[in-house]
């Protein structure tokens, strides 16, 4: 399965492929969808102030990788909502966010 992944620049690695055009400050396309990232291009993006990217997953995640990512997302939300166990509305919000963030992993 080829899925779109929203990642921060620091999570980007060489050999990932852009799934959405990157624009520069002038509105020009800096890198087009489909560009294969390299160490040099990542350094260039950092210099240009790019913080977030959308990349294609290059291949299907293994069941184990999916399980690990689910645990990581869950842990992140648990940390963020750690003082909200007694708040029903916040638990609903947490469930909505969790469902959204896990969607791309399925």
């Amino acid at each position, binding site marked *: 399965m080829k899925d779109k992944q929203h990642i921060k620049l620091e999570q980007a690695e060489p050999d990932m492929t852009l799934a959405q055009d990157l624009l520069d400050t002038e509105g020009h396309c800096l890198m087009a969808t489909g560009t294969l990232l390299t160490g040099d291009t990542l350094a260039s993006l950092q210099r240009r102030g790019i913080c*977030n990217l959308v990349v294609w997953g290059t291949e299907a995640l293994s069941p184990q990788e999916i399980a690990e990512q689910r645990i990581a997302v869950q842990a992140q939300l648990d940390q963020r909502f750690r003082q909200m166990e007694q708040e029903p509305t916040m638990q609903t919000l947490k469930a909505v966010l969790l469902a959204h963030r896990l969607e791309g992993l399925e």
Partner: protein
Amino acid sequence: MPSLNLNNLDQKILQLPTLSVVVTRLLELLGHEDLTMVNLMSMVSEDQALAARILQIANSPFYGFSRHVGSLQDAGTLLGIHTLGNIITAAGVMNHFPPNSDDGFDRLSFWQHAIGVGICARVLARHKGLDIEMAFTAGLLHDMGKLVLASYFADDFAAVLVWRDEHNCLLHDAEQAVLGLNHTLIGARVAQRWRLPEPVVNAIQYHHSLPEIATPLSELVHIADILARGLDIGHGGDDLIPVLQTRALQRLSLDWQTIRACLGEIEDLNAAAGVLLKQGKG
């Protein structure tokens, strides 16, 4: 003893630097019906940093122009006075607290969060038929009180950070405990002094604690702040999440299904929003 408190807040704020002369004059004129695009553009062109930031924002994915907005004249024609007014408000404050400056507070992460909140507010506003430009500006500037604290009251802010770490709490609660006031009031008073639009001042003041009768914009920014935290966009100074006031959802008639539907759109816009963090030229 902290130097800032409720009694001396207004006096201390009077001593702070103002926005640039051009931005201040523009903010005074923006509400006037006789302001023409020609006058507005002529004034903007006197402030190169402002002009550069306006073009940067005009060329961001929010406006989705198929062609490059290359000049102020282009921006004026394509955007109109209302949108430009909001961009000028946002650009004026961003240039006052540039993302790349280093004063011990991680401004880059701060502005990432602020932009994320602006995007959340903008997307929600579009779904509800509210003013999307004002929503983005209010979301972007909702936490400007934190920047005022970090930039001009560094010792007080350092004491707040120590309290936050010792008590595992929101920055807002640490400010209240240490100073007896928090960034929402500080931000609103400074925004008022800088003559930012009244609805934006209101959203800055009430985004953590909505009054019984709140403006839709305040409610929108309250929800947007919480969503941006939940989506882990940037860092506003703590890693917790404030309680969502359900009456904000009720009054805006927002249900969970709608919120869920907005999340993907928010992340798509945010993925391309890093361009706003580059230092403006000029």
